[in-house]
């Protein structure tokens, strides 16, 4: 089974984000980037399928050299090889086009990706790839079973679940709950160094949308958790006190 996992390199949720001088992008200086957490579910699912059926897992990312770090992380988890499509990510569509172009000649049985990347939260990649590659897709999937070429995907819907049937080759976007992603083991981190990352150049940006301006939220909300352990009355009194004295809404 040939499985492609699309991975993206995104700012860690715990890093402080500053805007770049042009106000249209974030300033990457000092920002810690990680493998998109939803892509971890996709990588894990690919590895589990490979362990069951044998085959190959290819991690692919669009971006600059820095995106190799996300590929390397997927390799350390156990993917076999990586492809970096070098190109400017002007918007989701441009990324989808570059991905589709790189994926097409590979002839994969399955394309897995996270349901969204936590930087722009677009949730557009799976549907766009589905169109561009003319393949069926199931998105925001929490359960996956593959028998021969029959694919059964499960997704959560308001108050219940939905079971979708489709067939290989297809596209699946992973939701939290699909599996429990493994930690890359230290020996695998070391082995990842010698796994190949092929570099290809993506076609020039063909974005259909452009960012006019980015703004930081006006004021950071200060969240406070009042612990109620063993003393719910005390916690309620504390809550009322805070609403009165600090939030000044009572």
């Amino acid at each position, binding site marked *: 089974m040939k499985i492609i996992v699309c991975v993206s390199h995104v700012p860690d949720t715990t890093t402080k984000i500053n805007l770049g001088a042009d106000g249209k992008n974030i300033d990457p200086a000092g920002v810690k980037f*990680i493998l998109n957490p939803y892509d971890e579910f996709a990588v894990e699912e690919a590895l589990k399928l490979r362990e069951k059926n044998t085959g190959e897992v290819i991690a692919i990312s669009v971006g600059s050299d820095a995106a190799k770090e996300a590929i390397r992380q997927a390799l350390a988890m156990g993917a076999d090889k990586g492809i970096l499509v070098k190109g400017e990510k002007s918007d989701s569509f441009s990324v989808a086009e570059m991905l589709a172009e790189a994926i097409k000649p590979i002839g994969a049985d399955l394309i897995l990706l996270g349901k969204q990347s936590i930087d722009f939260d677009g949730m557009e990649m799976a549907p766009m790839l589905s169109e561009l590659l003319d393949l069926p897709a199931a998105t925001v999937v929490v359960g996956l079973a593959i028998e021969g070429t029959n694919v059964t995907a499960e997704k959560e819907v308001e108050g219940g679940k939905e079971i979708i049937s489709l067939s290989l080759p297809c596209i699946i976007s992973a939701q939290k709950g699909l599996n429990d992603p493994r930690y890359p083991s230290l020996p695998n981190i070391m082995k990842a160094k010698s796994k190949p990352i092929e570099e290809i150049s993506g076609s020039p940006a063909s974005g259909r949308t452009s960012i006019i301006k980015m703004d930081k939220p006006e004021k950071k909300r200060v969240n406070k958790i009042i612990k109620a352990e063993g003393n719910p009355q005390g916690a309620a009194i504390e809550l009322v006190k805070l609403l009165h004295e600090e939030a000044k809404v009572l």
Partner: protein
Amino acid sequence: MTDFYDITGLLTEEQRMIRDTVRNFVTSEVLPIIEEHNQAMTFPMELIPKIGALGLLGPTLPEKYGCAGLDSIAYGLINQELERGDSSIRSFSSVQSSLVMYPIFAYGNEEQRMKWLPRLASGNAVGCFGLTEPDHGSDPGGMVTMAKKVSGGYNLNGAKMWITNGTISDVAVVWAKVDSDDSKSIRGFLVEKGMKGFTAPEMKGKYSLRASVTSELVFQDVFVPEENMLPNVQGLKGPLGCLTQARYGISWGAVGAAIACYESSVEYAKSRIQFGKPIASFQLVQAKLAEMLTEITKAQLLCLRLGQLKNEGKMKPAHVSMAKRNNVAMALDIARVARDIHGANGILGEYPIMRHMANLESVKTYEGTHDIHTLVLGQEITGIAAYE
């Protein structure tokens, strides 16, 4: 994560990935359970296979034995992250890696390595290191545990005390004085669980390293076959060579404990309101935080340079003494100041402070006490050994 001087920028991509992996592991697997184990005085046994699968045990040894073949800076970072969780977890891994797997690798023969290293690396077997005795701590050369030469092996008698992992071990690296016609030197023995006459009762009533198993090892006419003696080292330099490895890891580990206390203090100081403002706005509190960050940064730089020296094969035991001595004392001071910043909350298990503080009291004493390392440095400077 506290990294004021961008030490991350001096690490390789693999070193960063290793650090971040262990950090994530500690955040999701250790921190949620550790306080409960600390209160109950139990070691989280369920972590052993996970720690093994991650490759944290004996990580600098060759791949041939199921290990990762890491460099020393990566090994240091592992210790730093584990001890950010708890010194008990770091102690477990230090003992297994530096005091059990290292001597089997460095002083053992190939059969001993193949028999033990893969099992110890995966966490399928646990090991301990028996050097300290009830009456011989800082002066291990005075040990009275004896191995009398008999046909086919040795007859072991004596007792060890304060032995981390003792009760849960499958193999103990035990240092004993050989009593035979041609030799009186200290040798290392692999004493296996279940050998007749060998028991390892757990020590109770600790206020420190409560989530770590600390034991006595008792040997009553234990027959240890010849093939269980480590062939390639004799004398005190055997155990001391292991301790240099372990102390190196502790130098990094202490930084992790200090970071945990410091980060909790910053967060607490910013959210705790007294006199109508966050206590972080008071000069005295800011001075404490500034001092903490400065000391942590100095310790981080000490570690990094020590790691470079170790990677280059230029590290001397006295270099390690300086880092162990400085960093553990630094961490203990920071834990105490952190307790103060947390006010009364600082004494609760809800915050990691008292747990780290109490743990660090052991860390200050084991692997060479703070004062003994002072004297090692004194000897390095003057050429005169003051501890003898």
